[in-house]
């Protein structure tokens, strides 16, 4: 927590709690900008921490072939239709593509990014529609889904 600057935010909030007990509204207002700043710092630290972690993870997974990518989409679509929870690990192949770390699969990165977003907010219906769109693009682009490895 200390490494992520959470202690700074925590200490400000403790002071605010004490001020609330004393009904000291003026001082609370003065502290609000500090809360936002500490909160922003924490957010930045946290994002940097998670992106470093994710990049390491993404580096570690093998790149998908076009056929494997199609299978991933089919499996995701089935899970979304069943309202199954999709773990972040299952989204890693897609994140790898979004981050341009896989050159074997040709896909609309923006659409893929949107798909990951929709899955993460549990908007399953939209996610399934996006998968359908990607699959259509894939079949138009390649004609046949051959294993290109």
């Amino acid at each position, binding site marked *: 927590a200390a490494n992520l600057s959470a202690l700074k935010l925590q200490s400000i909030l403790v002071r605010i709690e004490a001020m609330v007990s004393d009904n000291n509204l003026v001082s609370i207002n003065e502290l609000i900008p500090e809360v936002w700043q500490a909160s922003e710092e924490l957010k930045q630290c946290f994002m940097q921490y998670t992106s470093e972690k994710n990049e390491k993870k993404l580096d570690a997974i093998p790149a998908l072939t076009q056929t494997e990518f199609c299978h991933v989409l089919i499996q995701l679509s089935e899970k979304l239709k*069943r*309202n*199954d*929870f999709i*773990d972040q690990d299952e989204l890693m192949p897609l994140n790898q593509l979004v981050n341009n770390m896989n050159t074997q699969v040709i896909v609309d990165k923006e659409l893929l990014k949107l798909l990951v977003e929709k899955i*993460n*907010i*549990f*908007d399953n219906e939209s996610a399934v529609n996006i998968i359908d769109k990607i699959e259509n693009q894939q079949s138009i682009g390649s004609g046949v889904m051959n294993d290109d490895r």
Partner: protein
Amino acid sequence: MTDKATILIVDDSPSNLQILAAILKDTYHIKAATSGKDCLKIACSDPRPDLILLDIEMPDMNGYEVCSELKDNIGKSIPIIFVTGKDNDGDEEMGLNLGAVDYITKPISPAIVRARVNTHIELKLQRDALERMAMHDQLTGIYNRHYLIEAAQQKIARATRHKHPISLLMLDVDHFKAINDTYGHSKGDEVLQEMSKVLKAQNRAEDIVARFGGEEFVILLDQCDAVSAEDKSEKLRKILAELNPGGIKITVSIGIAELKSGEECFDDVLKRADLAVYQAKDNGRNCVVVTR
């Protein structure tokens, strides 16, 4: 698809959903819903969740309303744990009075959530097992007499209300005592087990196939009149005569009674089918008799 118990997490905040799912995903199969409406839809479709973690403050339909709806309808056997920021006693009391089994306040402690969920899942699975045992015959795995009587009464009430036919078959293995005396009881059990498999396989999902007693079986055929029931019984009789369960040739006597609409209850139909079995035995066994 999976041997893991299924947990449905319902919260309008995706981040809360992600947190709860991350805590439980290694042990359970997780389903997710971000609204009360979706929760009801998922809870009523197969495979049903074994437990629901339900947020209270949600737009459109709050957790209390979802809980009431589930407890009044098809989801009444699914345990519900409220996971909520509402931390006063009144809210907790209300949630528990609506039928929730537990109440967890946010911010959550992963260890506590895991422990409480584990406890309630274990209780749910034990209750399911007890229900299964209470409804099924231990030897053959098909429904038992207790279940038959309960379910038949409902089916007969529905048939009477909608004026559609329903027939009852009573099936008795001929000379079963001689099989037990000659080959031993374990062989007799084997005969009943193999027969049950065939009876189950030969009937529709909406029919009830039950072991009524020793070597007596009852089949309740929904939307089926006596004529169709007789055809069906003849077919069953022939199949069983060729089955040779446990390497033993068997025959069966079958009695049929169709519900006289508006006049009869289950016991009446059962009695008539039973008399028809006696008639079939008197007629030389290995035959079908229909009461009119």
